């Protein structure tokens, strides 16, 4: 078994005085696509933010590529190869699509340059005709594509996707799903936070379920699908 790319060990995270995460831990190995499932407010986004360096854990550790990166700033995490796609996409609305991509361009931690603009447009053919349009004027699905493309511009080792399907029409969700399968096909390491388990079915191999700030279940995605009790208790489906 390969050593994990990311390992989150027993972290506690607070917002002000209120504790959000209680000893959360999970691991993602190279080439693995992991789903972090849970209901609204279960602690998914906070976990993602703690990994991405936007919310420092008060206890516990985050290891990335074998280094302890607990409490590092977001830009440091990004430079070490972690790309974060936030839940509300957060494209730069006044910038054009291409400028959004250019801003994010950088080499990978080992100097990789696998994602030149040309390849991005190949993988995201939808974006090329829109490249001169202000990102704020794109549809939700287009913005999600752009956000993922923007993350790839940084030649990351691993992708963090926070609720990529949220608020999108089913047909668009399907298209994003196809894209993510494509990424999985080329061996990307991905952690997806989702409420929608079905979205993750064809994409992720493994799943952890979070509820009230604690990890309550770990299994393969197929195992989770089979476990009705866990699904109805923690995922309301």
């Amino acid at each position, binding site marked *: 078994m390969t050593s994990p790319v990311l390992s989150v060990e027993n972290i506690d995270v607070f917002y002000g005085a209120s504790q959000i995460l209680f000893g959360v831990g999970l691991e993602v190995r190279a080439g693995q696509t992991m789903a972090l499932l849970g209901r609204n407010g279960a602690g998914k986004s906070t976990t993602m933010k703690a990994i991405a360096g936007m919310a420092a854990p008060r206890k516990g550790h985050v290891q990335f590529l074998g280094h302890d990166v607990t409490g590092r700033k977001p*830009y440091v995490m990004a430079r070490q190869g972690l790309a*974060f796609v936030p839940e509300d996409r957060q494209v730069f609305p006044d910038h054009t699509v291409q400028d959004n991509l250019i801003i994010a361009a950088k080499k990978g931690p080992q100097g990789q340059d696998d994602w030149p603009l040309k390849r991005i447009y190949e993988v995201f053919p939808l974006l090329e005709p829109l490249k001169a349009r202000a990102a704020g004027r794109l549809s939700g699905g287009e913005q999600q594509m752009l956000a993922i493309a923007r993350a790839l511009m940084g030649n990351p080792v691993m992708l963090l996707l926070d609720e990529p399907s949220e608020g999108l029409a089913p047909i668009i969700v399907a298209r994003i799903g196809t894209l993510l399968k494509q990424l999985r096909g080329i061996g990307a390491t991905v952690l997806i936070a989702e409420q929608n388990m079905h979205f993750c079915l064809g994409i992720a191999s493994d799943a952890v379920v979070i509820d009230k700030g604690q990890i309550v279940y770990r299994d393969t995605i197929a195992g989770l699908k089979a476990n009705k009790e866990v699904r109805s208790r923690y995922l309301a489906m």
Partner: protein
Amino acid sequence: MDLDALLGCVTSSSCLVTQTTSGLIVGMLLFMVAAGLTLIFGVLKIVNFAHGTFYMLGAYIAYSAFMFTGSYVLGVLAGGLGMAIFGVIFERVLISRVYGANVLMQLLICYAVVLICDDLVKIVWGPDFYAMGMPPAFQVPPLFIAGGVVPPFYIMLIVVALAIGGALSLLLGLTRIGKIIRAAAHNPNMVSALGINTTLLYSLVFAVGGMLAGLAGGLAAPVRSLTPGMGFSILIESFIVTVIGGMGSIGGALIAAVVLGLIRSFGTIGFPLFTEGLMYIAMIIILVFKPSGLFGKEIV
């Protein structure tokens, strides 16, 4: 009020040319100071109440460099460079500690710096007022254009200020770093998540803002009196410009600065006793009807 005089002026080419250039020169120097102010606010959400002090220190440094080297150009560059460095130190040592804090805390820190710098200037340069004096190259009689009087020095100032303003907008509009700065103004966390060191970026923005104010102080030094506390009136006017133009909008600052310059140059003919009042009333009206200024984005 003297509307006849105003009418007489706008119908005479000599008066039009003279007053327009005089409005432009006041406006362009104001723009350089206000551009830095609005840039810093736009990206860092910091209201830099010490910006007038940057202008003052820039003028004093330029004065000393001019006295030392005898070169006006070197003097101005020294003023700009000095304030770029000062801006970084100011941001790193003080302002970085109050990001996201209440505006009153920012006001407090900036005001402390204003107080300290005014006294430091008094200690280093003395309480007397100084004048740099016109560099020899510009000790020439004014030009007459369409009957209007236009001094070559002011043509140079307008051109230089326009060039700096143009360079700034090209930098922000076309270069990658400029795009990053504008993106950071909108969403600094996301910019950081893309691997960009925002700490460095903030320092850079303060350096640029400080440099602009320092350059303006240096450029103006031959014609304005240098005295401790000289930064205050320019600060107030820059605030009016930034607020009218929309805080965070460089283009808005340019337009508002020129408009303010023209209000003053033609206002002094039409409303000689009420130009100051006009500025405050303009500011109040614009804030009431368009709270974010002419070109500002609605803040959430």
